[in-house]
């Protein structure tokens, strides 16, 4: 008798549980329809999305801007954010390959699957520079599509902003025109700001960077990359490599730039031995930035170089 009672109680509990779950599922889409729920892997993409989306979008950035976006875990909180997203913005070209596919799979949200309109891969919208990992032996970290660090290039970001607005418009046709207008304005500001900053820097600057993550500065500033502190991508500077850099660059002038999260030792060695100034710089704007934050970051980069 008591066995039967437990069964009835269990059936009831299960029924209640099932209806709660169903109710949750039914309520979910109506909630999401209000604004565009966007998850961006980096804060640079987040800044573009905020600028274009305005009040019509809510943007969450996954990768902390002061970290290497290569080396993250597919955290449970990432999957929880992606589960509810209407749109996923990624850099692509291998930058997030170490964690994003696992987070995407774990999110169980078809809208952001690769190939769906809700999945926006910025690298597909532009032409990439060659990555130095494509030359030389395969050391396990090859960006076959090209250099994915185009967050340092406002000109390419301008193109990406336009493509992003179009995609956001596909998902929210009511706001398509607004998105495009905002993107056009953002693109113009990016291009103008790049031009202004470039004019303030003395011509023919030579820079040494840590990783290939600032190569795109060549695209809009009067700079030439003359060396990397890493002997190979992903391998920290060795004494031997730094000595050879010093002997190659002896007697010339230039600047050393590296990301704030990268060890400063190599840069300091060049500073001592070549007399070059070295600057730790952020690679992405603060996590909650809109376009303004990115424009400030551009100025930070440009102002590390000798000004006219």
């Amino acid at each position, binding site marked *: 008798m008591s066995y039967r009672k437990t069964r009835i109680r269990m059936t009831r509990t299960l029924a209640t549980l099932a209806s709660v779950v169903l109710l949750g599922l039914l309520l*979910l889409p109506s909630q999401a329809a209000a604004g565009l729920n966007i998850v961006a892997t980096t804060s640079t993409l987040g800044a573009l999305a905020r600028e274009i989306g305005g009040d019509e979008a809510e943007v969450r950035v996954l990768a902390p801007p002061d970290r290497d976006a290569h080396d993250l875990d597919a*955290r449970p909180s990432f999957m929880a954010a992606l589960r509810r997203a209407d749109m996923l913005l990624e850099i692509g070209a291998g930058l997030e390959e170490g964690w994003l596919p*696992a987070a995407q799979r774990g999110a*169980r949200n078809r809208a952001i*699957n690769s190939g769906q309109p809700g999945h926006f891969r910025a690298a597909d919208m532009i032409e990439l520079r060659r990555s130095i990992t494509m*030359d030389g032996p395969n050391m396990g970290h090859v960006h076959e599509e090209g250099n994915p660090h185009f967050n340092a290039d406002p000109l390419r970001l301008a193109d990406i902003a336009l493509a992003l607005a179009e995609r956001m418009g596909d998902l929210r046709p009511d706001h398509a025109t607004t998105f495009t207008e905002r993107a056009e304005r953002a693109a113009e500001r990016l291009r103008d700001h790049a031009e202004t900053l470039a004019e303030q820097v003395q011509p023919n600057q030579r820079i040494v960077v840590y990783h290939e993550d600032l190569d795109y500065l060549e695209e809009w500033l009067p700079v030439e990359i003359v060396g990397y502190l890493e002997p190979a991508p*992903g391998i920290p500077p060795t004494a031997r490599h730094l000595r050879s850099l010093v002997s190659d660059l002896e007697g010339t002038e230039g600047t050393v730039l590296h990301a704030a*999260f990268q060890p400063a030792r190599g840069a300091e060695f060049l500073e001592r031995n070549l007399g070059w100034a070295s600057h730790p710089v952020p690679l992405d704007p603060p996590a909650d930035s809109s376009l303004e934050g990115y424009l400030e970051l551009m100025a930070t980069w440009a102002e590390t170089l000798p000004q006219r």
Partner: protein
Amino acid sequence: MPRTPYARPVLAGLTALTLAAPGAAAAQWTAGGDNSSWGLDASLILEGVYYNELSHGNDSPAGFDDGHDHGHGHGDDHGFDDGFNLGHSEIKLDAQLGDLFDGVLTLGFDDSDIEVEEAYLTTRALPGGFQIKAGKFLSDIGYINSRHGHEWDFVNRPLVNEYLFGDHGLQETGVQATWLAPTATYTQLGVELLQGETSGIANYEGGQSALNGQERILRDRSGPRLVTAFAKFGPDLGPDHAAQFGVSGGYARSYQVTDEHSTRFEDWDGSAWFAGVDAVYKYSSGRAYGHGDWRLQGEYFYREIDVDRRDVNFEADGNGPVGFVRNEQSFKNQQDGIYVQGVYGFAPRWEAGLRAEALGLSNDVGRGDGETFGTSYRHTAQVTFRPVEPVFLRAQLSQNDFVDDHGDRDRGLEFMLQLNVALGAHGAHRF
């Protein structure tokens, strides 16, 4: 513009490491870029282990002989020989069918055996946060169970996973359904219907032949014989911290063991269940190459086996003729185990870890008159160096402090040097 040359010392060092470990030098494989056009990623994981037993202790922890060593279907031995070992290497193939399914095949091999470790499809397009996985896979109960050896922080599997489940953990053929709640806190619920063959929790023998009209108690039982359920929670703790907590459990409606003694078969037939909790915490310092990062991880599992025992003579002995039945009893085995481990990145690309384990905090074995065995322990320390992303070299020292069936404790000390190289495409790291 000089494009940086690759540092020769690094390459020379790697070559030396590769040559130092057997097997690891066996193959060079790179997944061709052309393959990616039809969505197939291939990777090869090669492992070499140098093993040295510095002092010999008790072979196995008391109370865990039955059900563990009877695991059939596993050709390989989880133990290492003194000296060089190929370790546990893998070939992994990953492919997608549009955005509908992901397919995964993992073949595990050592120098004598090759085994399908996982072969499954995962749905990618079900609505409402649901996902179905079907095939042969590592169960998602607990934390370490679903992870392959090259993802572990130590050379060997935790005792609790090995002795409560099996040499490959809980690895089964079946179907899994999971649901991710649309909440800010990561909440995943899952159930699995599994065939039920894992030695520690769902050992299966099937019907055994009758003897001189004397029926044995072991019967065929159709699958699925094992059902599991789990829940995982992961609060959002900001950029520096991340954690995941899990509870899981399972019920095997068939747990069968047969043992051949000198003149009789000993048969067990019954059921088993388990339950456990797991927790992982990760701290990210934000510095390069993992310097200053922390990982803490722990799991506890409890297992109860509830069986009927019946012995049948296949040869006449002092107790009776062929077909003579004795030792008819019903009993329970109640056992558990726990481990806690921490790993710290003490320098760029270097990490060190400690693991403390206890097996049989409860160790009641009901067979015969029933016996309560003592608790066995193991303490492990490791240092790992990652010269480049896909390569690691790990030195590990383990002290086994096992108690034997007579309550005598003996300590053994083991040293292991592991070289692990991942070639080809790199799958994304799970949390």
